[in-house]
């Protein structure tokens, strides 16, 4: 460890720390297992891991915010020379001023909606009394200035600010205690892609200017490598890699780190490939399907093994045609302009092809999905699927549409009813759409599970959603969409909630379904890398308007609209960080 050279510089030393989740009558589950590391003053360290790696638990433990049933079971946390693992509540409260502070992923929701921003600062100043009363307003202005906000926000209520602004406010609140150590727990994950980029920029600048020590907790190795000087990679409760960012990028020591790194690529590159996935255009030129090329390269990654796609009964033969789609919501308050969510969008999804709909949040892409599936009716314009006029369907007729047009949802944790088994969830659409009953329906359900690569199928059929991982749940969601044997699948950000290592598997599955079942795919995303991998054509949306369209690889290699360029810049790429 190179920190040992500057013993005086040490701000935090964690020794053999274990944090367990205790539940009565069961052995404690150790989310953090015998972790040791040190932080020098002024260091910017990234802590990376996938969900369940214990990174947040560790972050909560070192700021002493861990709550029951999590408990520090062993080890010491030396902060500025004193052990804080066991200090009492009041001492801990005082320690928060000039000590350590934390910014949470949902920090923007931590503001009290009925109090102005000014009052939030006032509370903190009053609780710690470190700013004299006559200097408080001045200090508040200074703090919001630091996070690049106008002093006017002080008199606003949280509800009047955007998500990004609220997250900046919560950073300013954390800063108001002049902490020596700031822990950022996924500070930008809940924000829109473009806003994420800007907020991360502010955090980097702040750290340089203020000189506090920072820990950035993130699931995204790309973001961390772009920002931090040193990276800790966490896996199953242990730190598997600890080194300067450049070395982690160029010579990763641990297999797990190498795996994480392999899932990044620049969507602007000439040829893009990820483990088990090659760019659609390249494969098409060669005339091979994804499954074949993956088999040729003898994919060892279990997550991307090609599913057996043997049960297809028909190929897509009808196109989805959207013409002049416009959606205008009535103004939220009297006197405001009506919200134009989608304006005059036209496109055709040809049978058996894939189309990406990309844009930041608020670009109208999800509203388009709702109109295509008949959940909402367009203000003007039309959606046609074969001879169905989707905008005019009655509730009962929607069923006819849903036989052919199905949806894969963004959040696999919300899209499955927690109380139903996988079998029940899949049996319902099979019975409703194919008329199969009893053992025939069950056979079909098992076939579907086989198709999405969930085997042994009998075991998976009996499981409840909470017994499945995120990737497995998303496969169940996809299986449900396939149950009616649809022609079109609309996938709304199907991988954005999944860990990087699981994404490739789900993307590969969608691609295989399209190639081998002949399903048309409308892929909605903000992630241009995945769009490049699995779609033929792309439509870039900005504030409800199409700003760019064309073949995916050409648009991403030579973007002509400034908005597309901004989206491309927002894709985290560790290699770019290394080059800079």
């Amino acid at each position: 460890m190179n920190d040992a050279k500057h013993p005086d510089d040490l701000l935090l030393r964690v020794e053999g720390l274990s944090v367990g989740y205790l539940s009565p009558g069961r052995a404690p589950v150790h989310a953090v297992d015998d972790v040791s590391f040190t932080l020098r003053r002024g260091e910017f360290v990234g802590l990376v891991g996938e969900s369940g790696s214990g990174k947040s638990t560790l972050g909560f433990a070192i700021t002493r915010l861990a709550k029951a049933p999590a408990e520090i079971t062993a080890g010491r946390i030396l902060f500025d020379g004193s052990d804080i693992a066991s200090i009492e509540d009041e001492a801990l409260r005082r320690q928060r001023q000039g000590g350590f502070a934390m910014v949470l992923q949902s920090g923007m929701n931590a503001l009290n909606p009925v109090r102005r921003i000014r009052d939030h600062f006032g509370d903190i100043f009053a609780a710690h009394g470190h700013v004299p009363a006559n200097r408080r307003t001045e200090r508040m202005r200074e703090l919001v200035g630091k996070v690049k906000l106008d002093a006017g926000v002080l008199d606003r209520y949280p509800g009047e600010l955007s998500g990004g602004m609220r997250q900046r406010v919560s950073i300013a609140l954390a800063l108001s205690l002049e902490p020596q150590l700031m822990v950022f727990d996924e500070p930008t994950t809940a924000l829109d892609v473009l806003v994420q980029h800007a907020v991360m920029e502010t955090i980097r600048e702040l750290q340089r200017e203020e000189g506090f020590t920072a820990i950035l907790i993130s699931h995204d190795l790309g973001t961390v490598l772009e920002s931090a000087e040193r990276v800790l990679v966490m896996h199953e409760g242990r730190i598997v890699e600890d080194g300067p960012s450049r070395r982690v990028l160029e010579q990763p020591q641990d297999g797990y780190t190498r795996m994480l790194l392999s899932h990044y690529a620049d969507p602007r590159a000439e040829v893009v490939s990820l483990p088990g996935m090659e760019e659609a255009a390249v494969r098409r030129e060669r005339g091979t399907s994804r499954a074949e090329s993956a088999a040729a390269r003898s994919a060892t990654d279990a997550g991307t093994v090609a599913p057996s796609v043997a049960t297809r009964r028909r190929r897509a033969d009808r196109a989805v045609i959207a013409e002049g789609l416009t959606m205008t919501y009535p103004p939220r308050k009297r006197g405001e302009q009506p919200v134009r969510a989608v304006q005059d969008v036209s496109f055709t999804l040809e049978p058996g092809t894939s189309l990406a709909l990309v844009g930041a949040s608020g670009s109208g892409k999800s509203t388009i999905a709702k109109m295509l599936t008949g959940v909402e009716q367009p203000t003007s314009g039309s959606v046609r699927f074969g001879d169905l006029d989707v905008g005019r369907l009655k509730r009962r007729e929607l069923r006819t549409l849903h036989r052919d047009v199905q949806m894969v949802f963004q959040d696999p944790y919300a899209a499955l009813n927690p109380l139903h088994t996988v079998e029940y969830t899949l049996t319902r659409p099979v019975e409703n759409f194919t008329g199969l009953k009893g053992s025939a329906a069950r056979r079909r359900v098992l076939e579907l599970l086989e198709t999405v690569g969930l085997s042994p199928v009998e075991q998976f059929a009996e499981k409840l959603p909470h017994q499945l991982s995120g990737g497995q749940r998303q496969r169940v969601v996809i299986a449900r969409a396939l149950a009616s044997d649809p022609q079109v699948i609309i996938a709304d950000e199907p991988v954005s909630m999944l860990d990087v290592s699981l994404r490739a598997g789900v993307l590969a599955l969608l691609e295989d379904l399209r190639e081998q079942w002949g399903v048309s795919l409308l892929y909605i995303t903000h992630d241009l890398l995945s769009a490049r991998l699995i779609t033929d054509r792309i439509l870039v949306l900005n504030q409800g308007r199409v700003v760019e369209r064309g073949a995916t690889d050409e648009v991403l290699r030579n973007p002509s609209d400034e908005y597309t360029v901004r989206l491309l810049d927002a894709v985290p790429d560790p290699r770019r960080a290394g080059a800079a």
Partner: protein
Amino acid sequence: MTTTHSIRTADRDGAGGAGPLRVVLRFAGTILSNGKARIGAAILGLFVVVGVFAPLLAPYDPTANDFASGEGATAAHWLGTTAAGEDVLSQLLHGAQVSLLVGFVAGGLSTVVAVLIGLSWGYLRGFVADAINFIVNLFLVIPGLPLMIVLAAYLQGGGLIMIIAVVVVTGWAWGARVLRSQTQSLRSRDFVTAAVFSGESSARIVFREILPNMLSLIVSSFFGAATAAILAESGLSYLGLDDTSTISWGTMLFWAQNSNALLTGQWALLFAPGLCIALLATSLTLINFGVDGISNPRLREGKGQR
């Protein structure tokens, strides 16, 4: 986010499958893991035993009126006798039957009505929802007690069925309102939209997808309704609106009041049934503390942790 998820997972792992019996057992287990709820269940259990075995436990026939009237506590009559010469203890034991019966039947029926109306009100949109909205608001603004008295006076002589009917009519609206707002929040969840995509009918979505996710709320609404029903029954019989020859705690209070029991020093006549009503209502409220733990796992993590 990771942490809360793993807690939930750990909670449910032990329970395994989702059969109805398992669900009931899991619910009972969760409720009883709460100390207050255990006390409530013990009190309720005692009353149930007393009610069921009243004919065996009671020293005399509760309607026998051939004892000396207005006696205080004696070895033969532990709680004394009424002005009409009946044994108070025997009446008290038999009275538990009526309170429990009305409590559970009327509480159950008004919960059923609340579930049916609340869920469809929350799920449907447009004209039907507006119509239900009007009716429920109507029932919410009419003062409950006067309505009860008017109804009971009209249906004079209907006995217990009348009392139950009155309690159900006046008691469902609040529960419906609570269940409706929960339904509205669940209906916007992805799994409900997904069920629409699976071709499910509205009725099936409401009762198979949404309802099971709010069982704890329904259970707690049932205990609340049962408590209200017990109190309403006592109140109505105390006012003499019940058939006054039925033996219930409310009618005991009615007769005690009629015979000026306090003035004659027979405090047990008022005190004993009053205490029983209060205890029974308290026991159900205590059980409801445990029900909270079903919907909110954080409430059942045990003591001393926050």
